[in-house]
């Protein structure tokens, strides 16, 4: 029996025109699903000429768990915890995206305390996600020290979350109508201590990694994508901003209390790996700024405006809501038929759309460049496959 997957690849081999004048032979290489630098079970089929990547065919589905379909049978309230497992490094922001869509549909007015705490916690998680990215980015380029440093500082934020939320990774903290619990009494003090601790550490990150000549050589002018192409491919988040387009939902369509705080949207110029690196490093600074402005005056109020455990029955219709996670725009679309279970639920996940920009970035480069590119767009595979 012929494997349909292999036979389609063979067709691609036969159809692909040989562009080189030298007497070379094109060949295909499988990268993944078991590969240390694809960050999970992403599979890329590379059409290679020597060590130069000619073409990339991403093959998805190795961690497709059917979260969208499952949402239709578990209902709105139980569904929120499944969004933790989409992009597990931004689990709180995914919770927020779904909760915001349901709140928008049901016209639920949130008080200032909920909005402020949500903003602070989401920014903390943005820093946490970028710390992990920084560590893994270094390890993919062959430097092991960033991994140790990034994870050391990630543990500090994890400890803060564990105190308030009770979980370390899959939090399930934001619910439609508020938060599961109020913040821990020590929360404010711990966050202040963290900001004090992390400011000099960020400079240490720069000293350790950014100035290194090997890092610069491997990142500058590698994986260039211009703003127009990035937009056309649907890239968002740091990938798009590094190409020079200041598209950040926190500024353009402010949600939470982002309209009340001062912060800047870092953008790049060239759109190469170096710009994506710099944008994320500056985003950590901006997130610290946002938290600093909010942490001193968290308003009083309830942490939940809905009755706990109340059935969620949005009015009939189609609803869409989107927020900016650490990797880009996370959108939630659902169709309601006035029961407590959605008729259809769909997530517009940032990683799925960011991945396709690789098709424009990698051809012409080497395999080692592809590793740097994949790491610089910061892929999380379960978020693509859902």
């Amino acid at each position, binding site marked *: 029996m012929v494997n349909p997957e292999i036979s389609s690849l063979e067709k691609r081999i036969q159809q692909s025109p040989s562009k080189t004048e030298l007497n070379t032979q094109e060949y295909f290489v499988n990268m993944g*699903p*078991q*590969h*240390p630098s694809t960050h*999970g*079970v992403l599979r890329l089929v590379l059409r290679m000429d020597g060590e130069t990547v000619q073409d990339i065919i991403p093959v998805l*589905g*190795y*961690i*497709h*768990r*059917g979260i969208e*379909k*499952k949402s239709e*049978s*578990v209902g709105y309230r139980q569904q929120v*915890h*499944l969004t*933790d*497992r989409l992009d*597990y*490094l931004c689990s709180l922001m995914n919770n927020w995206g779904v909760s915001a869509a349901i709140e928008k549909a049901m016209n639920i007015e949130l008080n200032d305390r909920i909005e402020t705490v949500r903003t602070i916690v989401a920014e903390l998680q943005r820093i946490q996600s970028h710390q*992990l990215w920084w560590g893994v980015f270094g390890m993919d380029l062959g430097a092991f020290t960033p*991994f*140790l440093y990034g*994870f*050391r500082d*990630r*543990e500090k934020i*994890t400890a803060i979350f564990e105190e308030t939320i009770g979980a*370390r*990774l*899959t939090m399930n903290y934001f619910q439609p109508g508020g938060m599961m619990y109020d913040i821990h009494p020590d929360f404010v003090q711990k966050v202040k201590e963290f900001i004090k601790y992390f400011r000099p550490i960020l400079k240490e990150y720069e000293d350790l990694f950014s100035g290194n000549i090997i890092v610069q050589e491997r990142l500058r002018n590698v994986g260039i994508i211009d703003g127009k192409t990035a937009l056309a491919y649907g890239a968002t988040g740091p990938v798009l901003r590094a190409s020079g387009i200041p598209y950040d939902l926190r500024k353009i369509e402010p949600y939470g209390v982002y309209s009340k705080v001062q912060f800047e949207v870092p953008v790049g110029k060239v759109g190469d790996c170096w710009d994506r690196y710099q944008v994320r490093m500056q985003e950590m600074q901006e997130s610290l700024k946002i938290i600093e402005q909010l942490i001193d005056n968290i308003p009083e109020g309830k942490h939940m405006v809905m009755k706990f455990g109340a059935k969620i029955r949005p009015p009939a219709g189609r609803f869409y809501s989107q927020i900016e996670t650490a990797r880009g725009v996370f959108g939630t679309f659902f169709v309601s038929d006035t029961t407590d279970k959605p008729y259809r639920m769909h997530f517009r996940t940032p990683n799925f759309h960011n991945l396709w920009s690789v098709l424009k970035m990698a051809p012409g480069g080497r395999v080692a460049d592809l590793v740097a590119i994949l790491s610089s767009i910061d892929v999380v*595979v*379960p978020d693509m496959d859902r």
Partner: protein
Amino acid sequence: MGLITDQMPPMIEAFPGGPAFLTSLDSIINWARSSSLWPLTFGTSCCAIEVMMAAGAAHHDLARFGAEVARPSPRQADLLVLAGTIVKRMEPRLRTLYDQMAEPKYVIATGACAISGGPFIYNSYSTVRGAHEIIPVDVYVPGCPPRPEAFFYGLLTLQKMIREGETIRKPNERRKPVLANLPPGLTLEQLRKEMIQNLESHSVTKFSDKPTGGF
């Protein structure tokens, strides 16, 4: 190990004092196997981050248990740490990875998804309900995802099993899988004390009287 485990025991047992020699050889081999596990990095989803926190990061340091040499290639590894959901498309790949590993090989399945399908046990058309449907599992570590301490508890359980279980006279004998659940009411301090005791009792070097760093 074919020579030592298959051909040597019957030859040596014939000599006077041979069985005693074999028994002590057993304990040496099992000690060596249990204290130098090389894990295969196989992370499919969320649990991989917590295993990374446990294995690579400085706060929880897997090197203390002799299992820090994580290898991405199955041919160089002897411990498959199964971190995350297995879906039907990944199933044959996981089986291939397991088959490529050299004997003796051990499997730790971490997280609810690898035990039973976890949150995806109902109403999911693509998830495999537990790793035992594909490969034999030695130790299950429950949690969604398990804390690094829980993962260590699972690893210590596996080390204990290797030291007691597999002998050179009965190679490849597998026990039933064990659920390494942190007992209820156990505090982190008690767990740390047990880990230190375990490390001290099985180490070749002497510890100082007062462990400075603790955990």
